[in-house]
C-alpha cells in the first residue's frame, strides 16, 4: 500500500523522477535564498521579482518559441533590469524601495501579459504562468541543476557579508565597501533562482518554493544555518508530497507542490517551538528549548 503510494509512481515513470530531481534542485538553490529574503523583510520583493520576469520570458518566447535558452535569458534580463531600475530610483529620488519596485514590476507584468496574450495561445500563457514540472527535458534539468550549484556556491561566498547586511547594515557600511555589491549580487541570485523556478513551477508559483519553506523553518530553529537546512528539507518534502498527490489525484503539480509547502507552513505556525502559536499559548511546556 505505502509502496504503491510512495514509490510506485517514481519507479514506474521517468517523468516523475525527473520532476522530483528538478524540484530538489530548485529546493536546494532557491530555498536558502528565500531564507535571506525573509530575514531581510523582502518576502514580497521575491513576489514582485517573479512577476517582473514575465515580459523577458515572453519576449524570449516570441523570438524563439518554447526555447529554454531564449526564455531564460529573457527572464534574467527583465528581472535584473527591474531590480537595478528600482534600486537606482530608490537611491536618486525620494521614492522608497518598495514603491519603486512595485511600480516597475507592475509595468513589467503588464507588458508581459500583453505580449503573451497577443502573440501566443492560452496554452502558452499557462505554460509560462504555471510551469511544466512533469515535462522537464534534459536541457531544463541541466539548467536547473547548474543554477542550484551556482546559487549554493555564491551564497557560501557571500554568506558573511549577507548576514551582516541583514543584521546590522550600518556596521557593514562602516567597515567595508561590500554593502552595495552584496545587495545587488543577492538580487541577482533571487532573479536567477526565480528563472529556474519558473521553468518547473511557473512565474507565479516559483516564489512559493522560496518563501514558504523559509517562513516555516523560522518556527523550528533559532539560528540561521539551521534555518537554511530545515527549509531545504521542508522544500524537498513538499516537492515529493506535492508530486505524489498530483499523480494520484490528477492535480496540477505546481500548485500541489506549493500547497504542500503551505501545509508545512501552517503546521509550523501552530506547532513550531520557536514562537509558534502553541509555544506562545503554553509557554511552560517549551521552557527547556
Amino acid at each position: 500500500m505505502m509502496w504503491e503510494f510512495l514509490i510506485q509512481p517514481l519507479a514506474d515513470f521517468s517523468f516523475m523522477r525527473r520532476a522530483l530531481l528538478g524540484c530538489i534542485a530548485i529546493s536546494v538553490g532557491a530555498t536558502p535564498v528565500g531564507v535571506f529574503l525573509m530575514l531581510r523583510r523582502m518576502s514580497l520583493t521575491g513576489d514582485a521579482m517573479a512577476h517582473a520576469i514575465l515580459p523577458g520570458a515572453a519576449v524570449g518566447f516570441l523570438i524563439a518559441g518554447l526555447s529554454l535558452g531564449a526564455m531564460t535569458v529573457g527572464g534574467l534580463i527583465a528581472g535584473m533590469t527591474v531590480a537595478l531600475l528600482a534600486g537606482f530610483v530608490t537611491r536618486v529620488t525620494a521614492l522608497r524601495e518598495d514603491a519603486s519596485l512595485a511600480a516597475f514590476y507592475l509595468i513589467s507584468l503588464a507588458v508581459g501579459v500583453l505580449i503573451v496574450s497577443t502573440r501566443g495561445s492560452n496554452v502558452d500563457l499557462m505554460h509560462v504562468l504555471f510551469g511544466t514540472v512533469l515535462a522537464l527535458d534534459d536541457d531544463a534539468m541541466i539548467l536547473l541543476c547548474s543554477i542550484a550549484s551556482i546559487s549554493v556556491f555564491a551564497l557560501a561566498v557571500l554568506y558573511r557579508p549577507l548576514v551582516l547586511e541583514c543584521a546590522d547594515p550600518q556596521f557593514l557600511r562602516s567597515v567595508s565597501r561590500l554593502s552595495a555589491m552584496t545587495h545587488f549580487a543577492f538580487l541577482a541570485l533571487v532573479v536567477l533562482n526565480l528563472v529556474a523556478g519558473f521553468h518547473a513551477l511557473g512565474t507565479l508559483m516559483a516564489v512559493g518554493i522560496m518563501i514558504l519553506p523559509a517562513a516555516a523553518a523560522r518556527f523550528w530553529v533559532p539560528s540561521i544555518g539551521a534555518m537554511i537546512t530545515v527549509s531545504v528539507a521542508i522544500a524537498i518534502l513538499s516537492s515529493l508530497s506535492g508530486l505524489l498527490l498530483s499523480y494520484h489525484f490528477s492535480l496540477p503539480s505546481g500548485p500541489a507542490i506549493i500547497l504542500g509547502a503551505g501545509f508545512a507552513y501552517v503546521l509550523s505556525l501552530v506547532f513550531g517551538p520557536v514562537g509558534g502559536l502553541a509555544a506562545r499559548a503554553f509557554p511552560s511546556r517549551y521552557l527547556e528549548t
Partner: protein
Amino acid sequence: MSNALEFRDLTLGYDRHPAVLSLCGTIAEGSLTAVVGPNGAGKSTVLKGVTGNLRPIAGQIDFGELSRDDIAYLPQQSEVDRSFPIAVADLVAMGLWREIGGFSGLRAAHRVRVAAAISSVGLEGFEKRPIGTLSGGQIQRALFARLLLQDARLVLLDEPFTAVDMKTVADLLGVIRRWHGEGRTVLAVLHDFDTVRAHFPRTLMLARELVAHGPTSQVLTAENQFRARQMCEACSGPPHTCGRHAA
C-alpha cells in the same frame, strides 16, 4: 600631543540643510571627549561626518594620521535588527572584519579574542544565545565587545547609554576608561551631565554651532547651557538653506 582630528570650518547637513555650522576645533590624540547639546544640536551629525558617511557641505575634517580603518563607530541602537537569528558570539566576532574580511575563516586565536571581549563586557555564558533574547543593556554590552575587537584608534559612540540600566552604564564606562588608558581617542555623544562630569575630562558643547570646547568643568557651566538652549531655539524656526544663510 598630536591631534587625532581637526574640524576646519566644518558645515554638515542633510539635503543642503545644515545641521552643524562652521565648526572649528581639534580633538587631541588619546583624549576622552563628551559631545553634548540640546536635541537637534547636530551631535550625531558630527559623528557621522567623522565616519565619512556624510560628506561636508563646506569646510573639512583633517584626520591627521588616521585612516578610515582606524575608526570604530557605534551608532544609536535602533540600527541592529534584533529579530535576526544570529548568536551573540557571531555578532561580536564581526568586530574582526578588518582582519578577516568578508570571506576568510575565524582561527583559534580569533576565537580566543572573541571570548575575551565577551567576558570583558560581562556577557560570559551568553555566547550562543540569539541576540533577540538579550535585553537592551545586554545588546549594548555585546556591541561594546564588538568595538573592543575592532581595536580602533578612534572610537565614536552615539548616545551609548540611552535606555540602558545603571549597572551596564557603570560596566561600559569601565570599558571606555580602559580605551582611554590605552591611549585611544574616544568621542561620545551623551545626555547625562553627571556622567560627563564624572568620567569625561573634555567636553564639546554644540548648538548647531560650537558653544564651548575644553575641560569639562569650564564647558558645562549654567551660562553655556543657557546659551546653547537659546541658540537652538533661535534656529528651530524655518530651516536655513546653505546659500541663504551665507548671505
